[in-house]
């Protein structure tokens, strides 16, 4: 782990120009596809397409480590939400180190739960239910996650402080049952950084294209979003998805695949 020049370059380099007509056509096509998917899901239960659904949809039967265990809070699943909250404190200058920031965030959980604050989330309640040793384990995992991100970027290079750990949602205007989530851990004026874990996988470009798609759908007019950069701290490996028409197409196809893989018989329902 180190201040990664390649990663910084990927976040600050300007995106390449794209033919506006091609971009508009790809965006219209993606919107049309999503509208069709929303209509097909009429009467179904609400479906949220996230990077997890895309990853699952792309997974082949022969992939190893296929676990469909129900979600549960553990130090591993909690490290990102606590970690991004800690990095947010560091960016704001409210903490001097990842350890201090994580401790502050965990203490906040305790206060919110004890005070009955409406800010207390399921995660806060789980953290507060742990013994001190359990909380230390959760904190240790979050400190490692936050330190890797904090030390990998030269935060002083951003003209405007980046937004840390804010997921963006797009709700279909055609159906209240369909929503897409774009997860990014750091958002700058020109790029969206996604911290990746697990092995390199064939689905990763589609996972990142979903972020491009969500950003594009949220923008007004034909504005283009920034580049999406996937980064594995384990290896330092980067994947860049440029805001190009092909990314919109890939993102929309990923959503279609995710919804199809969720049990809705797309063709028969159409």
């Amino acid at each position, binding site marked *: *782990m*180190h*201040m990664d020049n390649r990663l910084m370059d990927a976040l600050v380099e300007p995106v390449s120009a794209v033919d506006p007509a091609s971009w508009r056509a790809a965006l219209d096509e993606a919107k049309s596809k999503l509208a069709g998917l929303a209509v097909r899901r009429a009467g179904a239960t609400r479906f949220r397409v996230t990077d997890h659904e895309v990853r699952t949809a792309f997974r082949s039967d022969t992939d190893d480590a296929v676990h469909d265990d129900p979600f549960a809070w553990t130090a591993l699943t909690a490290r990102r939400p606590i970690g991004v909250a800690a990095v947010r404190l560091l960016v704001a200058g409210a903490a001097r*180190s990842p350890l201090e920031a994580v401790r502050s965030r965990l203490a906040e959980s305790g206060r919110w739960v004890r005070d009955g604050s409406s800010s207390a989330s399921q995660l806060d309640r789980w953290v507060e239910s742990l*013994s001190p*040793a359990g909380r230390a384990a959760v904190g240790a995992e979050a400190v490692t996650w936050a330190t890797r991100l904090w*030390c990998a970027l030269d935060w002083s290079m951003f003209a405007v402080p980046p937004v840390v750990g804010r997921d963006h949602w797009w709700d279909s205007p055609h159906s209240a049952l369909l929503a897409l989530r774009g997860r990014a851990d750091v958002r700058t004026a020109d790029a969206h950084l996604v911290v990746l874990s697990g092995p390199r996988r064939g689905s990763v470009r589609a996972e990142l294209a979903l972020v491009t798609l969500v950003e594009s759908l949220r923008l007004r007019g034909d504005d283009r979003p920034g580049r999406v950069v996937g980064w*594995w701290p384990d290896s330092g490996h980067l994947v860049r998805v440029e805001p190009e028409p092909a990314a919109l197409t890939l993102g929309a196809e990923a959503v279609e695949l995710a919804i199809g893989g969720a049990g809705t018989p797309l063709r028969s329902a159409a």
Partner: protein
Amino acid sequence: MVLVAPRPLFRPAPPGDATADRGTGAEVLALLRGDAAARPRFDPGLAGGLRAWLEDAAYDVVAARGEHAPPLFLGPRQLLSPHDEQGGPGHDWVAGDRGDRSAGAATDHRGDGATDRVLLSRLVQALFRQLVHTGEVHDPLADALEALRATGDEATVRRAESLPEGARAVLAETLAVHARNLSGLVPRFAPGWMARTNDRVAIPLGGGRIVLHGMFDLVVGLPQPRTASLCAVGLSSDGPWAVARRSLHYLSLLETLRSGTPPFRLALLESASGRYGVEDVREEHLRAIASHIAAWLERASAGPTNAHG
């Protein structure tokens, strides 16, 4: 105990004689800090050269296994096992393990002795993390089990809790010894040291068909481009010391491949005895371990199981 070779920085306490009141944690800290002005600068081409060496060896394995074979995950357990001095692939080399200590089921097939060692190792590891981040342990067994439960390692928790009362008492006593030694050994890091535990490294070779992986027990220091500025601390709960030391060299190689520079200094803490050692990372350590892995891969490509995925 010869970790400090080739240039001893500190003589360790005699086996079994290191206790919490000896202030060894402060000594470890002083040794890790060293002389900040003398941090080594490694050849910027070193990482590229090491990678090229390993990529060449990996190519033969990928060619032998077939391009569509599933990724081969290789960690220190496969590559550095003292029982596999020939370096060739054993019967479980394809399955690999991903260095995930929460994968409690991965060792269920082992004999009782090995299972006990793995159980103890995981419990000690949990206490080590707690000491690094909080500086204190109250009830070693209870704390370790609570920590493992929070990390989702239910298999290890169940294994410990299902032990007969007598065996559990022995485990608690053994763990208390490790905890006492660690309390003396583990430095109290100021927040500015950026101490982080369980820092996983995974380096893909052959287009991701082979993954060299491992996990630093503890990394400290602020990263600086082109200068080796990190220290890595390894924990050994049951030895052998030489293998634990080699694992640190292996992890230093992976860090070199990941970031371009290795840690500049390593410390190995032995929780059973309270011994420790500190050494600088040198290019010859990295070359030696890269040579070992390349030789292992060459043998693997020629081995009888190379075509199996």
